[in-house]
């Protein structure tokens, strides 16, 4: 008897579907997502520390900006690293999402959820929102000598912009709350004993980070003298 071929009879209501494979395998692609995501999350936490300077007042904020831009060639090197990490994350994520969308051509008419969190199911969507946010955020504040306190206040005190920032930061919080735990599982570096604490820590860290980030547009919106 002939060996059954892999993928034989792959028909759903008469239609054969091509399967698009991202990179070497789904597991390798997920590992790329986890590793690049870890790098990006590390940057987000560093960025958070910088932003926290703004809460200490105008002088602290300007001192932080001056210090950052005094790093010399280190700064463009870091920017290039971030760009590579982001590109890896976005391209691999897009390919995986396309692959996953094909894996169930006929959706369930009735589907209930047992364990999956909302944030885990929203990963592609929250990722897309963060990408759109970066397309606005980076051109708005990337200046050769760092953003001035006035630029921050004027930009974020516009209600439309502040709302956009708050929604995007909510997406970032959601993305991190799943991603910060998921990356350990994907890279296989978690002992079952630490699984529950790690999940809780991921949620707490992302909520804290989201809260501290959101405070900035909120303050700029309601307090005319912010950073003056």
């Amino acid at each position, binding site marked *: 008897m002939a060996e*059954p071929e*892999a*993928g034989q*009879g*792959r*028909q*759903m*209501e*008469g239609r054969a*579907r091509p*399967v698009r*494979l*991202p990179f*070497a*395998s*789904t*597991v*390798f*692609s*997920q*590992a790329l997502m986890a590793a690049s995501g870890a790098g990006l999350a590390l940057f987000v936490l560093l960025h958070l520390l910088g932003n926290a300077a703004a809460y200490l007042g105008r002088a602290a904020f300007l001192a932080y900006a001056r210090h950052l831009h005094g790093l010399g060639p280190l700064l463009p090197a870091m920017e290039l690293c971030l760009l590579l990490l982001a590109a890896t994350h976005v391209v691999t994520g897009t390919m*995986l999402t396309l*692959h*996953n969308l*094909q*894996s*169930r*051509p*006929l*959706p*369930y*008419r*009735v*589907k*209930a*959820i*047992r*364990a*999956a*969190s909302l944030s*885990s*199911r929203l*990963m592609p969507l929250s990722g897309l929102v963060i990408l759109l946010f970066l397309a606005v955020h980076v051109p708005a504040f990337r200046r050769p000598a760092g953003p001035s306190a006035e630029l921050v206040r004027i930009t974020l005190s516009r209600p439309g912009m502040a709302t956009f920032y708050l929604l995007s930061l909510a997406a970032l919080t959601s993305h991190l709350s*799943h991603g910060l*735990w*998921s990356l350990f*599982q*994907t*890279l*296989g*570096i*978690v002992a*079952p004993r630490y*699984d529950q604490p790690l999940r809780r820590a991921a949620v707490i860290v992302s909520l804290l980070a989201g809260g501290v980030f959101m405070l900035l547009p909120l303050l700029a919106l309601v307090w005319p003298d912010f950073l003056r």
Partner: protein
Amino acid sequence: MEKLIHLTLRVWRQPGPDRPGRFHDYPSGPVATSLSLLELLDLVNERLTLNGEEPIAFDHDCREGICGACGAMVDGLAHGPKSETTLCQLHLRDLADGGLVVIEPFRALAFPLIKDLVVDRSALDRIMAAGGYVSVDTGGAPEANVIPIPQSDADQALAAASCIGCGACVASCPHASAMLFVGGKVSQLACLPQGQPERARRVLAMVSAADREGFGACGNHRECEAACPKRLSLRHLARMNREYLSAR
């Protein structure tokens, strides 16, 4: 006196893979709560047959939760609302009197529909054929204590080996991923000495077979673990990821 309840079964009917499907409602009439849902389907089928209609096709075999043959979505959940059971172990006492029970086949690109609730799960067999075995000659049975295996490794291997291949993990995964199924076998054999010689080759071959079949990627939603009638832990999936990355 045994308790009787009334249910309405809304069952997916589809004569074949190339024919359109739709839901059909079947009132149960008064039925004893000691019946299993599959026994209620048997009852409905008897009536359909007597009326000269086509009975509902569904997979089943041992009806005691160990063979992995049965499986369908009940109210949107693989194997129904009761946790750590297969469909055959779902009884009417687990369902609400007077309720509507929606029964739909497992859906995935890699599980093409054959008829009604029956889907072709041979993709799982092909993943197993790609490397889910030990082919090295291990000789005759050695003296029991020659190869020491830590109890925790033996326990984990046994837990991983409890997979019955029903496909509930795939059916409930938002990405229709089979990685818990793959992870179970990879983890089981990686824990034991017999699995060592083919360890790296096995994980690469099984993952690539799963990708070829059109299963999705694991997004760590944890739906598989929650739906698994044997409650296979996500730790096996993490071990598979580790095995895969170190094999490359």
